[in-house]
């Protein structure tokens, strides 16, 4: 199998492919935009990318033609938690897609986010559902944060392969 890798950077998404003794570098998209996470589905070849646009928020994109064209999907959103005494909204807002993993179903995905949520999508990232069991754990607000000042994030998502041929 040809060795390849996706590289997500603050200025775009790149691919590396082993080419003889060296590596070939290609720009797959989003020149000058921060890409926080990317993943290639090993079964379908589809590429998924999470972006964090400085002004306009977190975006999720997918490509079925190796980066020639991209389609914008939906993003995980956090539940409305009402207001505090001063009238300020208590609900969280997505800061970053931090980790991404295939769930083993066709077009199924898990995303770990900042603030610390685990989200599932069954349709390639158009719709996302928060895993409430994990979200409602009383100790969650005390999880260690890193990189950002937001406490609690999901650093890794590991899945056990359950797909049958």
């Amino acid at each position, binding site marked *: 199998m040809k060795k390849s890798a996706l590289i997500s950077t603050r200025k775009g998404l790149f691919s590396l492919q082993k080419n003889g003794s060296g590596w070939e570098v290609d720009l797959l998209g989003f020149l000058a935009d921060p890409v926080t996470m990317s993943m290639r589905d090993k079964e379908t070849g589809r590429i998924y990318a999470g972006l964090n646009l400085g*002004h306009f928020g977190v975006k999720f994109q997918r490509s079925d033609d190796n980066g020639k064209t991209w389609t914008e999907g939906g993003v995980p959103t956090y539940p409305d938690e009402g207001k505090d005494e001063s*009238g300020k*909204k208590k*609900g969280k807002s*997505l800061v970053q897609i931090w980790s991404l993993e295939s769930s083993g179903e066709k077009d199924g995905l898990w995303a770990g986010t900042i603030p610390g949520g685990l989200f599932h999508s069954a349709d390639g990232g158009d719709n996302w559902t928060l895993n409430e069991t994990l979200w409602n754990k009383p100790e969650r607000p005390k999880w260690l944060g890193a990189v950002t000042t937001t406490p609690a994030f999901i650093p890794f998502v590991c899945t056990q392969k359950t797909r049958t041929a």
Partner: protein
Amino acid sequence: MLTVKFTSHLERFLEAPPEELSATTVGEALEQIFEKNPQLKSYILDDQGSVRKHVAIFIDGKMIEDRDHLSDAVSDTKEVFVMQALSGG
């Protein structure tokens, strides 16, 4: 009638042409546009429906006060302008 205009920086990501409409609050004005262009909503507002931290909205040149509920009045307004705030990167 008032006109809602969007920063040209948005054109890199999606279409956001100026819109003429009637509304009483800035929230109502934007909601009319988001109904036609749902994708635009997530670029301007966050998960909880508040204005994104690095987006600024001006009513005839004056920045809105209520970024959470967008209740600022626009009944006597000529122009609402949605722009990106200055930030590094």
